[in-house]
């Protein structure tokens, strides 16, 4: 196989619409392209003029799979712009909401979207029909717990309604929290079993030396909700507010998509691997033990093993939610009062698939003057293309269909959430 083009026009088992192309000339990869043709939906534009209070509800609609991430980054940015500090109980509940999304999204991705790649099935339903029914059932039951958290705190699993700039609309009842705790306790076994399932998958033996970036929380917690700083394995350590000083969104001619890069032009990686590598110590003992049992080292550079990291993070999220419930006391009022003012604010949090950065400037009356939203998939896009070039290079003598599948599997390592096309470009013009 010397000259060929591997092309998938409709990338399946991802959220949204994407495509990719790998061009091979003389047995070498000469170009890779990961394209997102999700039609532009102009969120940043129509946020202008809306009230600050509407940001969590509106930005949630960017992505149906990680709406909580959008809500979490947006409320933090707004609170900063408005100069309000929310209480610890408010933050704790938000972290718990995020735990729900992590579980639900990680398990969905790992079991329903990614695992079929490792086992050679078109879908989880095919998996279930071919001897893996117990695993799929386990994953569904487990995922449901994540949804139960989001539903209790947020009202519903998709586009939760209870998140508010300044806090919450209504704090949950302690007795409902305790009932949920019972379910979560039962989920611990599922969580462990799920780690073991992901660990049992066959992994391509490949590693890459990524520039890994994630948020850092102020209180020594595993990175999730409150990104006050941004750190990396190459020594980056900056306040989150300095995001735009260190990262750029390039408009690369070849791929015609906005891509997040460091100011120096380098690709970087956000998501489970960076979090794990940079904050391993902050995982719970049980999660660490599960990681060891799953054969994960202290450092993980094999992107295919991100599926195991997701399972470990999900286990952690179950424990974390239990911890937060145990600390919970009902509080009232559920939100701090807001007085509109002009200002600028940033919010960075860890969506299941990576760091999500929001920045807003507000007018005097609290309405939005400008909005900037940098979703994880935009940041990971250059890294995805590099993966395609480097990880596939020595597989080129395999049959076309196998290479194509491997490429897809490689992209799905990222759990790319393409619907968050707040500002991806339509790439039809590149088809020539």
């Amino acid at each position, binding site marked *: 196989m010397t000259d060929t083009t591997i092309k998938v026009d409709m990338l399946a*088992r991802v959220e949204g619409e994407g495509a990719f192309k790998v061009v091979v000339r003389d047995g070498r990869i000469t170009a890779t392209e990961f394209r997102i043709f999700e039609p*532009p939906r102009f969120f940043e*534009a129509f946020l202008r003029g809306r009230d600050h209070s509407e940001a969590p509800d509106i930005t949630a609609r960017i992505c149906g799979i990680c709406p909580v991430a959008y809500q979490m980054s947006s409320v933090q940015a707004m609170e900063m712009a408005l100069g309000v500090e929310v209480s610890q109980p408010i933050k704790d509940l938000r972290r718990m909401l995020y735990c729900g999304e992590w579980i639900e999204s990680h398990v969905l991705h790992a079991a329903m979207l990614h695992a079929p790649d490792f086992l050679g099935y078109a879908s989880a*339903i095919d998996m279930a029909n071919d001897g893996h029914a117990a695993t799929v059932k386990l994953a569904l039951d487990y995922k449901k717990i994540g949804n139960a958290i989001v539903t209790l705190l947020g009202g519903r699993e998709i586009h939760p309604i209870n998140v508010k700039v300044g806090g919450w609309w209504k704090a949950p009842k302690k007795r409902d929290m305790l009932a949920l705790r019972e379910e979560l306790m039962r989920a611990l076994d599922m969580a462990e079993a799920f780690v073991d399932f992901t660990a049992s998958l066959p992994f391509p033996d490949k590693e890459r030396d990524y520039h890994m970036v994630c948020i850092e929380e102020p209180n020594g917690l595993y990175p999730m909700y409150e990104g006050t700083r941004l750190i990396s394995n190459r020594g980056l350590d900056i306040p989150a507010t300095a995001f735009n000083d260190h990262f750029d969104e390039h408009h690369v001619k070849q791929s015609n998509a906005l891509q997040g890069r460091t100011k120096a032009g380098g690709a970087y990686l956000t998501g489970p691997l960076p979090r794990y590598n940079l904050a391993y110590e902050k995982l719970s003992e049980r999660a660490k033990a599960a990681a060891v049992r799953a054969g994960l080292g202290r450092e993980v550079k094999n992107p295919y093993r991100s599926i195991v990291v997701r399972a470990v993070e999900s286990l952690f999220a179950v424990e974390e939610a239990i911890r937060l419930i145990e600390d919970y006391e009902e509080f009232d009022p559920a939100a701090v009062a807001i007085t509109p003012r002009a200002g600028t604010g940033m919010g960075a949090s860890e969506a299941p698939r990576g760091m999500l950065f929001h920045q807003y400037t507000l007018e005097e009356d609290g309405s939005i003057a400008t909005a900037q939203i940098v979703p994880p998939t935009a940041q990971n896009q250059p890294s995805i293309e590099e993966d395609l070039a480097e990880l596939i290079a020595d597989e080129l003598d395999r049959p076309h269909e196998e290479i194509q599948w491997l490429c897809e599997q490689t992209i799905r390592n990222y759990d790319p959430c393409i619907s968050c096309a707040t500002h991806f470009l339509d790439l039809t*013009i590149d088809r020539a």
Partner: protein
Amino acid sequence: MTGRPRLAVWKFSSCDGCQLSLLDCEDEVLAVANAIEIAYFPEATRRDDDGGNYDISFVEGSVTTPHEAEAIKDIRARSTTLITIGACATSGGIQALKNGASTKDFIDAVYAHPEFITTLDTATPISDHVKVDFELRGCPISKTHLIELIAATLAGRAPQTPAHATCIECKMAGHVCVMVAEGKPCLGPVTHAGCGALCPGYARGCYGCFGPKETPNTASLSARLAENGADRRQIKRLYATFNTNAPAFREEAKAHD
């Protein structure tokens, strides 16, 4: 339909949330897969569109590009029953906020190289383009509705997704009306039921995810919102969100320009 009906799930401009609802039916999704053949559902399976006909097509998302405007016609031609799921597909969704605004300004606001953007000036519901057999409301749809829709379709009965006010669900749930007891603006009285009156249950006013109800009296509600202290801009914003292009809401928003 002989044998299991073939289902396809299609995506237009949207957030994926509505089709994700199907995968969020953890207790039912395997039963659904037994009852119907999930023939094309790229979010969940690698299986390609085989170019054939489908008994049921679920369509998520609104039409925002010339390509989408063409694609929906082909899908209609190959679908026996075409059901739109969610606010995007039934009214245009939040992206319809660009309708009436200058698309060029929007593109300039977001993109460095506007010349590369191919998009229509509007986000429009599927029913503006092809005949739709049934519309499931919501941003996102309710998964109970989705299961009910599938169950009803299989049983040959009309799905119970009543078009009356959210207030009915609110009272049935036993919530205390946030408008009457707290003066919070609530779109419940003009909003199609379906969510179970979630927002009032969380002490906030309904923001209209399910779009206009049957015979909505938006003018009367707006008058009340104004009496309760909402200014014109707030009232306009309330209607101009997730179902901004649904005629009743669009007109009421316009009346508050």
